[in-house]
């Protein structure tokens, strides 16, 4: 068994109203940041896992996302990275 660190990104599904993203967008504009076209707010989770291979980690992360980490009604998830942990 080896130690891995997985990074999972959960974002509101494209096309769904993202009020947090809109609020940040307006705040950036009022701070004088020009040219901001769109902001969306999601979350990133770092999950440390022990497994035999990177492939196995990815499979388990996907299962975790489908079961708990993301809600399939409104969110999409991406496994951004799986690195060997020191």
């Amino acid at each position, binding site marked *: 068994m080896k130690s891995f660190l997985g990074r999972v990104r959960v974002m509101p599904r494209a096309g*769904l*109203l993202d*009020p*947090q993203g809109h*609020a940040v967008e307006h705040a950036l504009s009022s701070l004088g940041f020009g040219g901001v076209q769109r902001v969306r707010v999601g979350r990133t989770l770092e999950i440390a896992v022990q497994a035999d291979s990177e492939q196995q980690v990815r499979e388990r992360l996907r299962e975790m996302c489908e079961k*708990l*980490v993301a*809600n399939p*009604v*409104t969110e999409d998830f991406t496994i951004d990275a799986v690195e060997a942990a020191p």
Partner: protein
Amino acid sequence: MKVAVIRFPGSNCDADALHAATLAGHEAWFVWHRSADLAGADTVILPGGFSYGDYLRPGAIARFSPVMQAVAAHARAGGSVLGICNGFQILCEAHLLPGQLVRNAQLSFVCREVTVRVDSDQTPFTSRYRIGQELRMPVAHGDGRYVADDATLDALEREGRVVFRYVGGSPNGALRDIAAIRNTDGNVVGMMPHPERAVEPILGSTDGLAMFALAGVPAGVS
């Protein structure tokens, strides 16, 4: 009737729900989230609050508690379940009801009295109301915006599964002004407004009391 009110860490409308059930003449008791024993309850109430601190998403963690396995079995057997506010969020996360409750469109917590219209009397909780009747009861939530894909929303409407709709605009941006829905069989109802806070004149409204009459609840399911 026997009523079990589920208590999660972070529930805060549990005592109110128990009071409403008792006021309506039922025998009611609390069931802690670690227990999987509903002790023969006819009806289960999932009360409002912030179970498990609303961590990750409201209701997401509560869904996996031992008591929810028992509640799901009770619902599958035809037992009646009412989820109020956080209880509605839990029912959606547990896939006992479709869709999800997300952050209010205006991002702020909303706490005020609203008017809802009865769209379905085909549930154990709304059989004392008539279709089109308007009820006053409070809402108090930060994540009450009901969302689902168009196919699900169309099916809810077509099958008469929208139970309550906000009148005069929703306080949270809910799609199609949906305040409450039911499952296909009608035994599981989820709602954002708080009927347990509208059961005595001193509370400003008694419109919620009829929900606790449980007039359409079949006895002895669990």
